[in-house]
């Protein structure tokens, strides 16, 4: 059966492809702001905190009746949001070692994740799906969650684009010119956490951050402008998701792997293309002024 036929036949495939297409837009879109602000590792830390939430939810669903019907994505997202706020706090506490917040949060996430997984005596294929993504696990409910989050993300970028640009390009200047960086930064972190929570069904916890950073890494090699980098990031993100999902379906492997490896291949192609062209033309004319 071809993918196209299967798409019309099975609801779970429609869910997976539609959520994949949406995530292919919003993950690299936020990813661009994450990368240019040198926060790439934060996405990684938050995805591990989401793992703790998911594992906790799966464990509770085994032992507490109330939780048995709860979608683990909710607790996963909630813990990622909690983690994002904690990172901001820790960055404030370690002013001279801001990056220290990242390994602290990351280990906390894995620590709790390991405890819950052990307590539940493993989750079998469920857990593998959360770690590496799954084509079959995306429910209609998951899809709706992703649609709502996508609307929030696009509205945020639409309304705060220029503030986010100013803060990303030059934080000090933004502060002097009276832009309220703290509040915008907090909103941004919460939204990043939500997108991580939403994307993990498809790409999996371990690979979520790659979909936010690798398409961007390729895009900034190609783009001269910020708007250009934004468009390239999304196009490369979408390409990776589409090619990745198709091959995951055909080869019957976890989509997280195929999506991320596709994006890596695109990145390598871009890098070699740039090398062949002799890298970005540097128009630096020494000593020129007027």
């Amino acid at each position: 059966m071809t993918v196209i036929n299967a798409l019309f036949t099975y609801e779970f495939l429609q869910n997976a492809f539609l959520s994949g297409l949406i995530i292919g837009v919003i993950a690299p879109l936020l990813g661009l702001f994450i990368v240019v602000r040198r926060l790439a590792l934060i996405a990684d830390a938050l995805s591990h905190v989401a793992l703790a939430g998911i594992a906790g939810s799966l464990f509770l669903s085994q032992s507490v009746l109330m939780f048995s019907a709860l979608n683990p994505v909710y607790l996963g997202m909630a813990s990622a949001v909690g983690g994002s706020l904690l990172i901001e706090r820790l960055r404030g506490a370690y002013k001279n070692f801001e990056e220290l917040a990242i390994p602290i949060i990351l280990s906390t996430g894995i620590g709790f994740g390991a405890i819950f997984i052990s307590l539940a005596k493993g989750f079998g294929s469920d857990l593998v799906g959360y770690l590496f993504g799954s084509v079959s696990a995306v429910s209609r409910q998951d899809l709706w969650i992703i649609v709502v989050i996508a609307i929030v993300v696009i509205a945020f970028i639409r309304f705060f684009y220029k503030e986010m640009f100013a803060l990303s390009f030059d934080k000090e200047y933004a502060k002097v010119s009276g832009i309220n960086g703290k509040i915008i930064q907090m909103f941004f972190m919460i939204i990043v956490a939500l997108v991580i929570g939403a994307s993990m069904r498809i790409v999996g916890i371990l690979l979520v951050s790659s979909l936010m950073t690798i398409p961007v890494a390729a895009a900034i090699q190609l783009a001269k402008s910020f708007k250009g980098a934004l468009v390239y990031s999304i196009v490369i993100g979408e390409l990776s998701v589409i090619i990745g999902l198709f091959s995951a379906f055909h080869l019957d492997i976890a989509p997280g792997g195929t999506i991320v490896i596709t994006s890596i291949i695109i990145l390598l192609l871009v890098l070699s293309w740039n090398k062949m062209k002799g890298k970005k033309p540097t128009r630096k004319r020494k000593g020129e002024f007027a």
Partner: protein
Amino acid sequence: MTTTIIECTDVNFRYENSTVLEDISLKVKEGEFWALIGPNGSGKSTLINIILGLLKADQGTVKLFGQNVDSFKQRERIGYVSQKSNSFNSGFPATVLEVVKSGLTRKVGLFKSFSKHDEQKALDALRIVKMEDFASHNIGELSGGQQQRVFIARALVGEPDLLIMDEPTVGIDQKNVASFYSMLNELNREHGIAILLVTHEIDLVTELASHVACLNRSIHFHGIQADYKKMNDADISLWYGHPVRRVHQEQKGV
């Protein structure tokens, strides 16, 4: 009556156990061009940060356009240019035009996007600094001096009444510094923008500035340029902490 733009009164600032600034009082009025000079580590940048509200003075008050700096909201009236190397990542994917437009962020206001009119303003600002041909270039591709011009355009695009610059010529080719300063002169004379320029170069800039303030922890001299010129080099060397010999424009044949 001319408006007072910056008014520092008895500003003190300590960092851990050492006094960085002591009883600084300074008034900058509309249309004036001040050069704030002093040796390295004299507290120049600290004073600028206090004036901008990035640091808080331990004692004393700072007023901007008559309002206390803490509650000063009309930030768009100030254009700020920092030492270039400090605050920007040269690999950043942005064009010159995008960078200049970001200077309008606050003026355009929350929830709104830049309009065609804003883009035109950005191009006008680039024209003032003679960088209009570079509008679509990536900011990282430009030379240090060109980048600094772009940052001045970003500071100018919101049509500020005051331009504050912290050692803007650091990293610029020596032969380009003169043309940079003459551009500042033009901004001050033709556009009427008040300028507060921090520098440790005491020759060129003091020829251009209408007023000079000499800082080394406390203010050792402040007044009009003519009075500064009358001071002898020995006095200046005394507060500078090492021998200083000023070269005058006439001598250089500029």
